[in-house]
């Protein structure tokens, strides 16, 4: 959600287009409860519908008022499926306002980790904090700050695109006018405009990704966790989406996205974590992780892909 895209709504409710440094002053205008939550970007009030503002902000006081620089903090996260360890003691810090990449080979535990970070899969051990709020202890508050796009899970695909986005908006308690405006903006931005009245089940794989992404953005969350958001999305749309996400991150929002396209991650992200066999091999700002090499080479080096290439001599002598 680009802040500029909906002046009518935001102008009344909260100052959004302020640069990140000035945002600290924004809470002064907001209700007292709000000031406990430092606005790291999209002002919190922008998310709240007018009618619901009071109730939700009351709930928000439950949140420990930690002004944390870390949008996502993961400690000791662990998950095993029937004796097979999928995620093994992962620690991760995603600073607020970063565009964070999460790369790893197939079956490395990316999807499992992201699902546990977003409250979709219960971990065996460990904690996940979103802006200082525990996702598993204080799910209601933490989930409001999260926008999620999982991989390989269905959408409610008997709804039309417009209905699905309204469903997502209404679940988050946005009012009809806000939802309508945002659906229009998102559809414009992601090229869904002409498909909004078709059933999601008739969408192509890339369109499903895009409508899911739009649904993740509709409540302008502080943190976006996207699992393979660009898989089967055409390059033009992917560029439009990346542009939107970059603007969002520049305004203080945090994006964590997984991909196995190294080039894309290297071009777009400013920090990266490499995961293999359930462990984080390297994590940090892009330059630190790369150490002058390309991400692809670093990845192969760290994940030990070179050994696999060495074997299979039989493939070099043809059998006919």
């Amino acid at each position, binding site marked *: 959600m680009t802040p500029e895209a909906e002046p009518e709504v935001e102008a009344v409710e909260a100052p959004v287009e302020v640069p990140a440094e000035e945002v600290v002053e924004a809470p002064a205008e907001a209700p007292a409860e709000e000031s406990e939550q430092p606005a790291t970007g999209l002002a919190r009030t922008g998310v709240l519908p007018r009618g619901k503002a009071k109730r939700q902000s009351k709930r928000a006081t439950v949140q420990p008022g930690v002004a944390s620089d870390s949008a996502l903090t993961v400690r000791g996260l662990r998950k095993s499926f029937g004796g097979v360890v999928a995620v093994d003691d992962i620690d991760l810090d995603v600073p607020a306002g970063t565009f964070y990449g999460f790369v790893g080979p197939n079956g490395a535990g990316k999807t499992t980790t992201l699902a546990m970070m977003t409250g979709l899969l219960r971990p065996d051990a460990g904690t996940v904090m979103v802006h200082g709020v525990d996702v598993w202890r204080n799910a209601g508050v933490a989930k409001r700050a999260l926008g999620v796009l999982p991989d390989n899970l269905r959408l*409610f*695909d008997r709804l039309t695109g417009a209905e699905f986005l309204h469903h997502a908006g209404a*679940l988050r308690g946005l009012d009809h006018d806000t939802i309508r405006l945002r659906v229009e903006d998102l559809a414009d931005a992601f090229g869904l405009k002409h498909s909004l009245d078709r059933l999601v089940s008739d969408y192509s794989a890339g369109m499903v990704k895009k409508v899911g992404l739009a649904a993740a953005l509709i409540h302008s969350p502080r943190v976006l966790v996207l699992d393979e958001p660009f898989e089967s999305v055409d390059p033009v749309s992917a560029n439009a989406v990346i542009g939107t996400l970059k603007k969002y991150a520049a305004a203080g929002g945090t994006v964590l996205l997984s991909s196995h396209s190294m080039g894309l991650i290297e071009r777009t992200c400013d920090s990266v974590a490499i995961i293999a066999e359930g462990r984080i091999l390297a994590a940090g700002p892009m330059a630190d992780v790369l150490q002058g090499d390309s991400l692809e080479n670093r990845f192969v080096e760290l994940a030990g892909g070179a050994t696999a290439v060495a074997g299979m001599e039989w493939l070099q002598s043809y059998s006919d």
Partner: protein
Amino acid sequence: MVAELLRLKLRLLVNAFRSPRAVVWAVIGFVLAAVLVAALWVGASLAAHLDATTLRRVVVIVGAMVSLAAFFLPVLVVRSHLIHPQTLRLFAMRPLGIIAAMLFTTLVGPILLLIPVALVPVQLWDGSARDVAWGAVPLIVLEGILAARLGALVGARLRRMPVLSGIARLLAVLLLLAGIAVIVAHVAPTVAELLPGKWWRSVLPVVLLLAPLRHPAIADTITTLPVGAFWRMPAHAEMGEWALVRQDLALGVAAVVVLFVLWAGSVRFLLRATRGVPRERVARVPGWFRRFAPTPTGAVAARSFTYWARDPRYRTALVVLPLIPVVMLLSMWIAGIPWELAVLLPLPAVVLLIGWSTLHNDVAYDSTAVWVHVSAGIRGVDDRIGRMLPVLAIGVPVVLGGSVLVAWLHGDWSILPALLGVCSALLLGGIGVSSISSATAPYPATRPGDAPFQQPQVPGSSGGGTQSGSLIAILLVASPAIAAAVLYLLGGDTFWSWTALVAGVAAGGVMLVAGLRGGGLAFDRRAPELLAFTTRH
């Protein structure tokens, strides 16, 4: 212009005979029609042998069948518009002009056959009745033209709906055959008398077989229908019942007006612009979401309503419901259970299924899409209420209307409270129990997009435990109301009937609230596990 249009119609009709096969069919059709008209004229000469009552009945029944056939034969035969109303748009005609032109051009065509048929009854009457009969002829023809136009529209529309078209054609054929059978049944005894004596041995069984169709109720029902009104006028005139003649006229004219409005409205609909001028998509709240507040409950409810209306898995449940009473009543009739008792049973069964059939495993129906609810962190109670609302919206009218209907069929109104009590307990209790079972004990369901009756291809539990467990729990909730209702039926004491109402509503209400709360808590606690369950299946 008129001559132009008539020439066009004639040319179109003649062009239809350009292939040899069409000629063959046309000849067969023409011969059949000629035989039919001739048969009617010959039949009219038999009138002298019929007694006055039978004569009146036969005339009206045959007339009503002819008027019905004017509608149903085009439904059966017509597969496309000979002159589509929109083609007349090219002549810069206004809609009303097009409607007039279509009526007019209809006169040149098969409907011409209606004129000799409408003239048949004239010879049967004398005096003032004959004048009335002459007056009825143009009205009958007008009604026939309108009915034929409407039938042609329906026939052309049905071409795009093969299944519905098959059903409609079957019904039309059955109806026409039934009409012919009733006519034959009425004429048969008279015809049999006219036949030579040695044929009686073979004719008599037929006459006896058809005897039930001569039941006065059948003839009376058919003769009171509006389709027979114009045919009935001379008969009433002959009896000197002029008030009835006026009533027939009013009824017939009303039927003509209704036919005209229906047909003209349909033509107007066909004349609408089929493609709008391209313009910016209007941003508005789509579908069911407009009718619900933008809250989590409203979102879940709007989504559920949309699925009930759109998803075949839910719609199948709705389609099966009306069949249940039919099957149950039929089997109980065969088993010899008395009607007063048998009629009480289907409604509770239907209500039980409404509350239970899809709701008790609703989360599994979402499949993995339930992540949307989990990641939005909505409260379990909101989710439960949203899913319940469509079921309540279907169930409450069924309970109220169904109870009144069943009490009326049962014949004793004092059973109404007991019926309401039992059905409320089953509906509310069913929703309550289902709200818990779908959050605590889901089992693999048909996946979205699969055929409704397809079994899910997964190993392990097929949900037998959940199904039987939830059904037993619902029956337990309803058991006080059922017990009181049985006591009422045994003793006839209205006290027990009212007790059943109170017990049913109370037990159902408590279960509903407990189910929504308990199911909500279970959803809150187990949401990730539910999602994990759906990803496994």
